[in-house]
């Protein structure tokens, strides 16, 4: 079937221009490869350490000094004023209070002896598999631009997200599923909404496909109106018949065969996507490992488990978002941060443990982090009480971590200053972080390019980006 006729390089090029890579396109491509004998691109550049990525995006900006980056000096300086030194860096100057110590206790875990806050007891069991980066920083203190930076490298909207770049570069391993799947929270979309997983100037098939955790997983996967299944079947068969006759009268038009293939793919996807989301196939013990049996962690746990099922099936990039921006703890830090951990700690640890025992962690890269960190000074509410204070945004320091697929376990990279205000040692920028993720997938960030209006665009843009070699296994 499919491409017949000329076999001329020109027409094939034309064809790939409309079809290349990614969502359905990529799937279709792999389906065509055998017959056409053409490769979509030169990717990967070198042997990948990870086949898939699961990105656990923690919207809002998790507080590094209350989770992973203990600061004894901050305890000592608790209550001292610091605002004047950082005036330009505070989004809400009128609410700025004095330096504030962490309300939680830290203790050491695993063979590596990594310090983890008491609010993450489950993750603490996994530290020997994790590389923590304590010296991350970004360049904007407002959610919207910071999210664009975290996902697309630059603060402007409308640019492709990292998942789209990966889809564009590598396509999907599974011809029936998209390369880039987004599992957003049924509660509320994150800030910037669906723009977080947009394809920007890349072909639209590379945008993240939202899989819903319940109901039909993909928009329009099933008819939006009541109709017996056999009728739909009749419709599809007759369409295929008419299309085939139409195409026979128009030989050497590869776009017509591509279009017919897209209809076949649509039918197959219907089955495969539903299967991937069917958690009834899982054992009770597995559900409990992810905390799906507990009310607070059930929702995120379910999505972590679906993420595993998707990478098992060859989905390249799975991205999880959390309810709006729960990590944005401007007030009531002590209670709020605990709440975030109750929702996510066990599911995240469950995912790491489950991937590991199934041998999947070796080639699955798990990435955890938000759009920025938080300040060491208190953000005071109207009552001006420190007891229910929170922390304001901080672009100069945040902690993120990676695990699995080619990453060293039990290491800490970089450091912040004595009060956790700014990354000072071995600083890692967002472009560095993106370059590292691409590197683990076998892609050289400088050579994953898309020509737009004469300019070779890339995820790391014109920034100098460095792969964080220190955390590579």
């Amino acid at each position: 079937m499919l491409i017949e006729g000329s076999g001329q390089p020109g027409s094939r090029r034309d064809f790939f221009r409309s079809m290349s890579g990614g969502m359905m396109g990529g799937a279709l491509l792999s389906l065509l490869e055998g017959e056409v004998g053409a490769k979509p691109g030169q990717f990967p550049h070198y042997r990948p350490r990870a086949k898939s990525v699961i990105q656990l995006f923690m919207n809002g900006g998790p507080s590094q000094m209350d989770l992973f980056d203990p600061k004894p000096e901050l305890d000592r300086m608790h209550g001292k004023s610091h605002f004047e030194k950082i005036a330009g860096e505070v989004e809400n100057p009128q609410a700025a209070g004095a330096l504030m110590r962490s309300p939680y206790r830290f203790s050491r875990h695993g063979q590596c002896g990594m310090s983890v806050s008491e609010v993450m007891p489950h993750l603490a069991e996994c530290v020997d598999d994790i590389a923590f980066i304590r010296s991350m920083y970004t360049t904007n203190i407002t959610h919207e631009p910071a999210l664009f930076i975290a996902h697309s490298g630059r603060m402007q909207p409308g640019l492709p997200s990292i998942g789209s770049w990966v889809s564009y570069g590598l396509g999907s391993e599974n011809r029936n599923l998209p390369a880039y799947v987004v599992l957003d929270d049924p509660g509320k979309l994150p800030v910037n909404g669906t723009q977080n997983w947009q394809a920007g100037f890349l072909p639209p098939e590379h945008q993240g496909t939202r899989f819903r955790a319940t109901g039909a997983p993909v928009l329009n996967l099933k008819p939006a109106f009541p109709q017996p299944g056999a009728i739909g079947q009749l419709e599809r068969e007759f369409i295929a018949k008419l299309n085939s006759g139409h195409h026979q009268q128009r030989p050497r038009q590869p776009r017509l065969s591509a279009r017919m293939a897209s209809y076949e793919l649509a039918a197959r996807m219907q089955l495969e996507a539903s299967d991937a989301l069917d958690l009834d196939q899982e054992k009770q013990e597995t559900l409990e490992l992810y905390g799906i049996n507990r009310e607070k962690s059930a929702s995120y746990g379910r999505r972590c488990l679906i993420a595993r099922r998707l990478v098992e099936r060859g989905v390249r990039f799975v991205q999880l978002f959390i309810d709006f921006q729960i990590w944005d703890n401007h007030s009531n830090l002590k209670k709020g941060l605990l709440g975030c951990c109750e929702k996510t700690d066990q599911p995240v640890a469950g995912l790491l443990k489950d991937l590991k025992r199934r041998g999947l962690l070796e080639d699955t890269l798990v990435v955890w982090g938000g759009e920025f960190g938080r300040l060491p000074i208190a953000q005071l509410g109207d009552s001006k009480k420190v007891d229910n204070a929170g922390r304001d945004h901080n672009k100069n320091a945040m902690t993120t971590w990676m695990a699995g697929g080619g990453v060293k376990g039990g290491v800490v990279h970089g450091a912040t200053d004595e009060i956790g205000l700014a990354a000072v040692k071995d600083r890692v920028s967002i472009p560095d972080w993106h370059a590292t993720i691409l590197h683990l997938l076998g892609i050289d960030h400088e050579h994953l390019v898309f020509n737009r209006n004469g300019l070779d665009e890339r995820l790391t843009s014109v920034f100098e980006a460095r792969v964080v070699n220190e955390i590579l296994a």
Partner: protein
Amino acid sequence: MFFGLRLLPLLVAGLACPIPLHAAEDKGKVGHHDIVPVMQLRCTVCHGARKQEAGLDLRTPAGMLRGGESGPALVPGKPGESLILKKIHDGEMPPRRKLVAVSVKTMQSHEIELLTRWIELGAPMSEEKNDEGMVPEKKERDFWAFREPVAPEIPRFGEDGISSPVDAFILQGLKKKGLDFSPMADKRTLIRRATFDLTGLPPSPGEVREFLADKGQDAYSRLLDRLLDSPRYGERWGRYWLDVAGYSDSDGGQNSDPVRDHAWRYRDYVISSFNKDKPYDRFLMEQLAGDELAKPGTVPDAVLTDNLVATGFLRMGMDYTFANITGFVPDRIEVIDREMEVMSGTILGLTMKCAKCHDHKFDPILQKDYFRLLAIFKGAFDEHDWMRPRDGKGGAAYDVPWPTRYLPVPGAHRQWKKKNAPVEKQIAELKKDGGEEKNKEAIKALEVKRGPEPLIRALWDRGEPSTQYVLSRGDYRRPGDPVGPGVPGVLHSRKDSYSPEQPWAGAGKTGRRLAFARWVTRPDHPLTARVMVNRIWKHHFAHGIVDTLDNFGKAGSPPSHPRLLDWLSVEFARQGWSMKAMHRIIMTSRTYRQSSRVTARASGLDPDNRLLSRMPLRRLDAEALRDSLIFVAGQLDEQSRGGPPDVIEDREDGLVSVPRGGQGWRRSVYVLQRRTKIPTFLSIFDLPRMDPNCVKRPESTVALQALHLLNDGNVNQLADHFSQRLMSEAEDITSRIRLAYMLALSRLPSDVEMREVSGLVRELENRWQHDSGEKIEPVALRKKAFANLCRILFNVSEFQYVD
């Protein structure tokens, strides 16, 4: 790739500490051109054009010396006695806790040092340098696109009966490869092709029958006349222009993606300009400098309105400067840069933006050229005297008067005010004595009654541009030499000096953009006509003669038929810049009337069809596909023009759709065009998000498209309407099938098809009866089966691809 090694040292230095160039070059010398940019960045928002806090205006050295209520801002030679430095050192100015409200950042230490040194030196003026634009060397200019187009000699093919110059040039290319034209397309193919091309909709069955029956010699040319006269023409071709202009009904940039009121007037202006066949030179004049074209009161209100609405062209870009935190000077510069990108790519086919940070890598465009271009627009786009996109109110607490971007619609606004005078009075009455809160509901009701204020989102020159500096590396913190307005040197020939002047006495405008518009629309301009005829060609033949529609420079693709391009360009200007004349020239050619069938030989020798050995098979774009579904279903609401745009509905699961209005659905061009929440149907068929514009739409073929056309509720609704139409317009199963084919495919079914389709309808009826488990009335049953057939027709390739 544009940031080469050559610039790297500068780049690194720039990151560490951005120092103005002058000072960097010569540490000793500091002049007012080093200081003015600092004042503009940190001070003039409260001590400048719109507001003189404490009576102080810091825009010029004279203003600084004059000082304000507390005396002069500086004492030359005596930094210790200069008030401005004292206030800065005390941390009093700029006031820290107010910075965000006015979108200003704190003063940097090197800026304070610079200011101190300048005062020490006695606050001297900078040496004025020669600001002439540089004309690149002849060999640089000697590139085809930078030379004015000259009508080439037309190849002669008398024996082949070739009468159209278009055909002569195309045939010449084909013959070189040993190819010839494909056979002529049949009449049914032609009417479908021409109708979709000019109106974006299929022909009606009556139109098809009439054309097939018309044996007159000029039947085809009369068909073109009819299509070009149709108001649907502007809706189709106006949309192409809206793509390159980056038309959007929202500001973008933030998650809220706020809706931009009144933008739709520009959409209507474009559609009606195309319908009126407004000469392209006039069309550009209005969009580039409508505010400087005519003195109010000297032309009819309608003309003045068009002129002002047209300037919306330069107001389409994404703009997040409505918020304090995203309204800093660099954010504003980005807004301006995007407009320049759209303007230069769309009109001049030049990637001027590449010259923002350094001289252009491929084309002889200097960095200075870019800033001279910015200076042309400075009277209207001034990052140091910014107009916010949303309203005229500033940070309320600090009373900063951000000017509004809206102008009243001439005439209409006056009438609106007059009509609403009593209502206004009532509202004012209710608001009195702090009644605003108490009478909220009543006021709101009156405001609804009053109706929307007729306003125009416009761009206009305010006559007081701040000085434009060349920004080293494009970095606003590194101002270099000041520059005046000017056009790119490479395109600047001796005979067309650029010399702006006041458009009329007492206009209070610089006239810079008007002079620019005049220069752009010169008939012998090397680029203007070429770029537009190439775009027209692209929309008829799928590829432009120059494939990179917005890049005619050296990094763009070379023209496949350079002499044809030049012939068309000269002809365009010669025919009074009439776009409809261009359509006639192109569409009456044999090239256009060829069959789209691909022979093995043509495919081998002309694989990409760059030689046009056949007509390309083309897919309907997003709007044409959606509009066609609506049209064949008999649900097209013909209301053209008028705002506000049709609203969209977005569902929790991400489906964005357009609900049916009272008269059906209007065409897609009238649907609210936000940067987010693009209707799912349009977006999966590649309607792009405007950022900043769309030069060429991608064409994807993905399973989501199939899923949408098969399973979407809105499409199902249309299939039902289509079926209902068949039920009421035809009697029996055979005539209904014939009508369905005529409506959807502009042809009758073959005998075999008729047999198969009638068999299918009966089978569907049986299935419905059997599987639904309940008794269905025969009439309802038939309608259901036909709705399935209608959906099938919506889904077949023949519906979506035009031969």
